């Protein structure tokens, strides 16, 4: 259309072409930049949360022995208990885990009460609940701190009686992530399972400080 107008106006063709392509490329480039910022932040958040639940030693579920018979809640762990905990920690740390991710970040199908927990801007929360479409995850863009294996959670696992937990150690399921305009805040729901009847889901509110994402607050939604 612009070309047609230029013809009508009898503008110098060369000047017009330069102007046109400059505008077109700047428009295209600005879209790409915006898109790539979202992608970059998405994978930063996914990497943070994946490592949060899997790689670091602090995030292993410790098995605490039951209190001795008749004791009250003041019971302290014995030396034997502490040694067993350490052994468990060591085994968990050196073990290379297979982490399976659901291939798509799922869309949000219902509202969750979260505002009162984290004092989030309602408009921001609503825009999160409006993310209805799912989005594919590229595993290669997730940075793991440890040398665990990252695979997609196969549909065939879902049909298995064990839910595939004889082949994998952890399964993660991420929702779509909602960012604010400045990419300083984010909301996401995470589903996590260590076994077919051992897991939870929670909603997280994250903040970016000095280029790194942190979990600011969270609320558990379900448990298995």
């Amino acid at each position, binding site marked *: 259309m612009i070309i047609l107008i230029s013809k009508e106006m009898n503008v110098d063709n060369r000047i017009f072409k330069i102007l046109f392509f400059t505008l077109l490329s700047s428009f295209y480039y600005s879209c790409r930049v915006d898109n790539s910022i979202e992608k970059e932040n998405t994978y930063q958040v996914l990497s943070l949360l994946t490592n949060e639940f899997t790689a670091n030693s602090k995030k292993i579920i410790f098995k605490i022995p*039951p209190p001795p*018979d008749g004791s009250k809640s003041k019971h302290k762990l014995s030396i034997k208990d502490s040694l067993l905990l350490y052994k468990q920690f060591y085994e968990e740390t050196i073990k290379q885990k297979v982490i399976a991710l659901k291939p798509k970040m799922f869309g949000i199908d219902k509202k969750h009460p979260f505002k009162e927990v984290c004092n989030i801007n309602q408009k921001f929360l609503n825009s999160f609940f409006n993310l209805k479409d799912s989005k594919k995850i590229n595993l290669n863009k997730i940075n793991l701190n440890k040398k665990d294996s990252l695979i997609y959670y196969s549909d065939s696992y879902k049909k298995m009686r064990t839910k595939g937990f004889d082949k994998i150690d952890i399964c993660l399921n991420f929702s779509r992530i909602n960012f604010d305009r400045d990419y300083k805040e984010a909301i996401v729901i995470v589903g996590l399972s260590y076994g077919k009847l051992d897991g939870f889901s929670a909603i997280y509110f994250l903040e970016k400080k000095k280029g790194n994402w942190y979990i600011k607050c969270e609320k558990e939604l379900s448990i298995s």
Partner: protein
Amino acid sequence: MKTYKYLYKAILILLLLSSYLTHSQIRPSEFFKRQWLDLDSDASLCCNSLDETLDDFSFNWDYNYNTAFNNLALLEQAKLDEIESWYRKQYNLIQDEIEKQLDTPFNSYDQAKKAFFSDIEGKNITRNTPVLLSKYKKLYNPGRNKNRKYLKELKHLQLREIEIRAGNRNNSQFPYLQAKGVSLKEITSLSKLSELKYDLENAFGNQKSRNHEYVYIIEKLDYLGSDFDKEMLNLKNKFYKSFDKWDQLGLMQFLLNYEHYKDILRPPYSTPDELVEFQYSDMATEPVIEEYAKNNRGGGVSLFDPRYPEINRYLYQNNFCGGYIDLMAWEADKQAALDGYIDDVPTHRIIASNLIQELNITNQNQIEWLNSYTYKNDLNNLSNFMQNYRVNGIVPAEVINFAKEVVKAILNGAEVDYEERIINGLTGKDKCIYDKLKKLSLFKSTIKTFENNDNYNLTIINGNCTNTSTACTDGGDINHGNVKIIMEIVSGNFPLEYAATLLHEGIHAEIFKYVDEHEKGIDPNRRENLLYHYFEQKKIQKPNLVNTAAQHQHMADKYVKPIAEAIRKLDNNQYPLEYYMGFGWDGLRSYGFDGYFNNGNWVNLNKDQSTEYYRKQKIVNDNTNLKGNECR
């Protein structure tokens, strides 16, 4: 120059020719010669009779009365001159025109006239009756709706009267219903109730009387009958006969013009001053039809009409020959009829109306469900359930929330246990297994929850868990007293595992409830073991894992054996308890440290035994009766 000469000549000839033609065109007709040029002298009529010089009626109708005017002028002249032959000729011409109009041959002028009149009035009836029908339907429909409203409100009062007479003055089950704009919860005495009832009954009676008349007027308007046609024909003939024979001819030609005019134009039809004597030629006009329908309708008067006892005095008079009218007997008849109408108002719709408002339901499917007669028992149960918790007219928020969940769930085919406050959305074999657990009180005895439970609601449904598990428990809405168990697995070939999963999730639900109660001030020592794990995990765990770890470790300590015992009972105690321990450990194996407590006694648990549990669990799974006929 020669050329110009020819041109002048030609122009001259053309001028002469055009002057002749114009003159010949404005030559007056015979009638105007006589009328205006005074050519009626004998000399001027030397050679033709008068009827030959006078034009015939024209029947070339237009969208006005010009033709009728012209015809009347001719008629006036003929009448003055008493030209009988002309009269007879027009008489016949009118018959011809009627035959042409009605496309029917007639033997005589009278026969043609009768058919023409009949046709005119038939058209008038067809044209005017729909207007009246519409008028009376517009009166009847709102009247009927008003009476439905009055009856509904009288039904509200009937229900409230039952409550007040039973001693319920301040806790109405139907606080959102109204009568004459007054909420039922505000009606706390029979005197106030009677006052409203009296007004509504009167309003109903008055409207009923009017509606009764409207119904029968509409019925009459739908078919006025042949008597009306005859009456209209008689009136038309009477009108015709009110003129002398010359004006009758004038009327007939006017009517032919008028019908043409009516076919094209819409009412009201105007008649010019010159034709004013014919202006009331239409007989079946709107007022005439309306009056006839009113006076000749059937149905008498309504029982609620004050004229009823007088019109039907034989029903109420003192003796066979007459005497005073027993008005009390009439009042009693009215009341009996009114009571019948009120009884016919479906109570379930009234209950539904209250629930829709009290639960603030806006979903159309849910509203339809509530109004459906098919589910009236469910509706009653829900309303009664809410009433059990209502104090001083207020239902607690968690009960309202549960009721809302009930409406949603029942619409999707769920069952509700109001006593236990459990909504069960499972179907088929899954439901069968749940029912067996319930029948054996295993759900209740194992998790000891939702018994004497006044504040918490449990919903069990099929669905998908966010965290890729076989089942999960959503405690996100625990603040409103709602816990939801979502079963992602189906029972299939492992019904006992399904049952164990139900119990496992039931325990999570109970813990959610306990934690919420604890936050509201319940003694924490009731779950000493849970708190112990919670605090221990909190020391070493990231916040997002504390709850999961604490709950599962608590379950590993406390519930492995109870679950195993429940599953054994469900399997008719086919094998010793150790065969069922694997079901108890499902989902908790990774939390089994080195033992657990059994009624205060420490039971050692090592991994070898655990492996044995797997083997024995398989034997039970392969041989359970629940795979066969017990649960299909």
